[in-house]
């Protein structure tokens, strides 16, 4: 009988911040983290003294490769003025800062620290697209690379296996893209705050002006089905199935539960934590799900005593459209093979029964890989506190939200459940 894991003592989030995500020629990793940290400072309702922070855990995947600069822990602890307090970097590919969050939680739960800063940062846009692709491919498993697989390629292959098993097709993935693009304009931090409908109409206008004729796109799906507007990257993954190249930073202030109300009357608590590791796509039991995600979900549900039905909304790692589809099944929100039908029925829209990626997701909010995990938790924290403005989940009385983060081709997956008491 598996034992449900528990924290040694409760841990609360009392502040959070994130930079705008995007491609910034005039900002580096330090500038972006400073933006996130400035927001965190003012987010702590009753204030805090940064000198009381006991330690920093920082997620960063590969600034070594992207910026030829490694060892970001002390650079950031110096930036925010907590050096010589310890700084530790965590690496789990695109899940790097979800690991920083976990380590920060464990450090407080063990009783060793009372207040920990956790964060993530990545700076990718100063490299060419080919260089970024090569840098990200460092996180595939060796056999995938030898066979010519790219990141979009592995997820494209997941899609063909899913389509063959369950009878879904490309149009079902378009529902995910359209939904994410509908949420993004409501998020001031998003890299692509524009709907597919607006993109389509702008493109029509510009083609009309330039060539004297516009394509006959009637719906968003006509636009997405046209290879001129939405070229293939790794079939069936097309441009609008893929997240962008981004720069950004995110951070959170964690404290022991017993002192949480010294900082805010509205702390958000860690209810469940899960992390799993994967064996490589080819070696999975089944090619239509991610074992590491399922393991992480079991751990987090077991620890929290909650079930998938209790999760009122979730951020889900949508590096590619198919990833969001298989993960909403892996996390138990929908039965295997049923996710694409529920999505087509609007279940994951902002006003649906299970809103997914209210932030716009990696697809539209952006994906500065090392910053993504904590930026997802930032969205959950913002929603639970009712501060999400135009994109606030309309259901009201939000108590429980979650975030799922994936690294590599499923090598590192986390699922984190947050609760407002």
């Amino acid at each position, binding site marked *: 009988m598996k034992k449900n894991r528990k924290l040694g003592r409760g841990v609360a989030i009392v502040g959070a911040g994130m930079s705008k995500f995007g491609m910034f020629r005039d900002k580096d990793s330090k500038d972006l983290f400073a933006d996130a940290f400035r927001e965190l400072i003012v987010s702590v309702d009753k204030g805090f003294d940064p000198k009381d922070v006991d330690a920093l855990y920082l997620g960063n995947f590969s600034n070594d490769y992207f910026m030829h600069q490694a060892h970001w822990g002390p650079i950031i602890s110096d930036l925010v003025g907590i050096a010589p307090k310890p700084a530790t970097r965590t690496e789990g590919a695109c899940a790097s800062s979800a690991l920083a969050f976990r380590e920060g939680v464990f450090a407080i739960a063990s009783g060793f620290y009372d207040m920990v800063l956790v964060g993530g940062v990545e700076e990718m846009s100063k490299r060419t*697209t*080919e260089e970024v*692709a*090569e840098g990200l*491919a460092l996180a595939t498993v*060796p*056999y*995938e*690379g*030898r*066979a*010519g*697989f*790219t990141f*979009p*390629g*592995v997820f*494209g*292959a*997941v899609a*063909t*296996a899913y*389509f*063959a098993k369950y009878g879904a097709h490309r149009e079902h993935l378009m529902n995910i893209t359209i939904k994410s693009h509908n949420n993004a304009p409501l998020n001031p931090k998003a890299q692509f705050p524009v709907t597919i409908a607006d993109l389509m109409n702008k493109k029509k206008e510009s083609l009309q002006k330039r060539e004297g004729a516009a394509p006959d796109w009637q719906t968003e799906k006509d636009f997405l089905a046209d290879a001129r507007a939405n*070229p*293939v*990257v*790794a*079939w*069936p*993954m097309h441009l609008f199935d893929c997240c962008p190249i981004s720069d950004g930073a995110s951070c959170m202030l964690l404290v022991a539960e017993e002192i949480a109300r010294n900082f805010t009357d509205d702390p958000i608590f860690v209810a469940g934590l899960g992390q799993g590791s994967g064996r490589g*796509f*080819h*070696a999975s039991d089944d*090619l239509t799900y991610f074992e590491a995600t399922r393991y992480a979900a079991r751990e987090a549900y077991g620890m929290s005593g909650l079930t998938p039905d209790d999760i009122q909304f979730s951020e889900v790692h949508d590096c590619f459209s198919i990833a969001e589809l298989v993960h909403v099944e892996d996390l138990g929100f929908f039965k295997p093979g049923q996710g694409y039908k529920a999505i087509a029925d609007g279940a994951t829209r902002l006003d649906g029964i299970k809103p997914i990626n209210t932030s716009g997701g990696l697809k539209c909010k952006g994906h500065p890989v090392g910053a993504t995990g904590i930026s997802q938790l930032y969205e959950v924290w913002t929603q639970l506190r009712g501060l999400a403005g135009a994109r606030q989940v309309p259901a009201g009385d939000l108590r429980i939200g979650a975030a799922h983060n994936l690294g590599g081709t499923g090598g590192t997956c986390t699922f984190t459940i947050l609760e407002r008491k």
Partner: protein
Amino acid sequence: MEEKSFSDITYEQYLKEEKLMGSRCTECEAAYVPPRSICVQCFSSDMEWVEMKGTGRLAAFTCITIAPPFMIAQGYNRKNPYISGVVELEEGGRVDARIEGLDPNKPEDIKVGMPLKVKYLHTEVGDKEETFLAFEPL
């Protein structure tokens, strides 16, 4: 018994000799392709080599237009895409491989489940000759 280590390096050397080789645990008979040096069923390190027949079925695939640098060096690009896939071997187990003999510009015609046989691609990459595992329709 061969003395070759049950490693990725040996796996690649066998591909050069046009052999698709896996390892089998002599204690519990669990088989692994690519090879493992430690059995993850019974944790024995007493392994032997087994040669695969080289037949199987397509389990998943993708047609890649945005290629990584080492594939671009082999002449692949947006106008000349290629296919990567996962192949379920007749003996069980799956391998990542290139897929040849099918049109990457017509992905709708490529069917998950179609039978395949092994093919070894001996290719110049820079000044080195490399061998890549591939499969093609039976």
